[in-house]
């Protein structure tokens, strides 16, 4: 295979040898060090392939063995070049192609971000794009070290960043910092206030003055534990200082959920019929080769992208898109009352998992249904026992009151 390609580049001729002893002719040629291949018998003559260089040495062999030979076919680059010798623009085109390739390989055509978990790639790409590292920028004009320094200064979450450009691909390697723990400044005085309405179930105070007790009803914003330390009662009360309150206050809280469950639902049923089409995206311009005039009524399109290039390091600004259209039919399902109820409970459970605090204990779920013309109207009340406290710094309160 590789030898074939090499022979095509060097050029070879197919010759037909006739005479009394073709074998002797071949032996002599081989003895001289020529390479002969694809020898085949054609009845009166023998056909074989020799290199151009070898062909010139054949004259002597033919004279000695009394054989005659003639060229049947010519193959390879030297003959092609000879054929194109009058087409002056042809080598110019090749030259232009090479030059264009060289010119285009001086640009960055793909920027990749790797190593990020919390930080979004799009954010980093946007930041770098504004500062001159994006697809289509000249490779030389990218100041990698400066960019890396700027990026690590701008993003707090980046502890290390390296921008590497190999070929036409820029790879941004990031190491993120460890998630920062929230530092609580215990010297800063604060109250603990209610972040919602509820009935207090338990109060544990390790610092501060408790203002509520078990069974109290509190509204949102009520002070539960005060950071102001008071000695004495009534008119004799004296403020002796302020502290950072620490307390665990739990309360019974009520949440209302109102939503509708419909009796019918439209679903997809894939028929299994698919169609494909291809398109090219060159320099962000899409070229469609094949566009169906009457595609299916309902379909999902799945697009597979592949960036063309030379190996992994030389992507080109050409993206090959492969679309698959999957036809589907829609059908409606109708739920029974029992199924609608099941769905209701499932929806509530999902919302509890998604929206509620991890430490919230669900005490009770009160679900009321009302049948309406297209399904169910659900009014649910979820009762939880959970932490109700929220820190409010005293200096922030003063700021607000002074404004």
């Amino acid at each position: 295979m590789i030898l074939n390609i090499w022979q095509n580049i060097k050029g070879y001729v197919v010759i037909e040898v006739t005479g009394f002893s073709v074998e002797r002719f071949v032996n002599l040629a081989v003895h001289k060090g020529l390479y002969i291949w694809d020898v085949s018998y054609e009845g009166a003559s023998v056909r074989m392939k020799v290199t151009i260089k070898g062909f010139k040495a054949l004259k002597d062999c033919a004279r000695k063995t009394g054989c005659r030979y003639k060229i049947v076919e010519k193959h390879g680059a030297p003959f092609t070049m000879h054929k194109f010798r009058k087409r002056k623009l042809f080598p110019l085109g090749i030259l232009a192609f090479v030059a264009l390739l060289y010119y285009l390989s001086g640009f960055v055509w793909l920027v990749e971000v790797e190593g990020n978990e919390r930080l979004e790639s799009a954010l980093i790409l946007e930041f770098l794009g504004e500062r001159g590292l994006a697809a289509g920028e000249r490779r030389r004009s990218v100041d990698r070290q400066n960019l890396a320094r700027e990026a690590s200064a701008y993003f707090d979450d980046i502890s290390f960043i390296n921008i590497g450009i190999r070929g036409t691909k820029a790879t941004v390697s990031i190491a993120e910092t460890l998630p920062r723990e929230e530092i609580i400044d215990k010297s800063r005085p604060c109250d603990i206030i209610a972040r919602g309405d509820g009935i207090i179930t338990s109060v544990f105070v390790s610092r501060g003055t408790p203002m509520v007790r078990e069974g109290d009803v509190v509204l949102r914003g009520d002070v539960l534990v005060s950071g102001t330390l008071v000695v004495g009662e009534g008119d004799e009360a004296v403020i002796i200082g302020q502290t950072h309150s620490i307390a665990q206050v739990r309360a019974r809280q009520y949440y209302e959920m109102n939503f509708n469950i419909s009796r019918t639902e439209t679903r997809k049923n894939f028929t299994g019929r698919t169609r494909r089409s291809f398109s090219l995206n060159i320099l962000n311009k899409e070229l469609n080769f094949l566009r169906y005039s009457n595609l299916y009524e309902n379909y999902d399109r799945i697009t597979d992208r592949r960036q063309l290039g030379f190996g992994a390091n030389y992507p080109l600004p050409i993206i090959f898109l492969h679309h698959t259209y999957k036809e589907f039919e829609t059908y409606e399902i109708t739920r029974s009352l029992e199924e609608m109820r099941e769905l209701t409970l499932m929806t509530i459970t999902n919302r509890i998992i998604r929206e509620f605090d991890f430490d919230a204990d669900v005490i009770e779920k009160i679900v009321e249904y009302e049948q309406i013309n297209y399904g169910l109207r659900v009014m649910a009340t979820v009762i939880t026992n959970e932490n109700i406290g929220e820190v409010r710094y005293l200096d922030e309160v003063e700021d607000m009151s002074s404004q």
Partner: protein
Amino acid sequence: MIKQKKQAANASTNLNLNLNPKQAISQKITSALELPKEVVMNLPLITLIGNEDMTVENFKGVLEYSEERVRINTTAGIVRVEGKKLLLKQITADNIGIVGNIMKVEFLV
């Protein structure tokens, strides 16, 4: 008398292995040292892949070539290959490749 004996001994080895005295010695050395025979004794190394691809290394020359029969001269005698649609895939100074439908490989000593 001694000469005759020697000749007889030589003759016997020649008969058995078809070798001259010089080759007989090199044969013994090669087998004692486990050297590759095709290198030391210049014997042909013949490789057959199925019945369609045959390579003969260390060959001396092509004696006959047609679609049904190829005869190759080697140090171990003439190798006659018979088959159908035989084709010499490549020929270099010491290597010849035959492809086609090979049916028979014979040594003519």
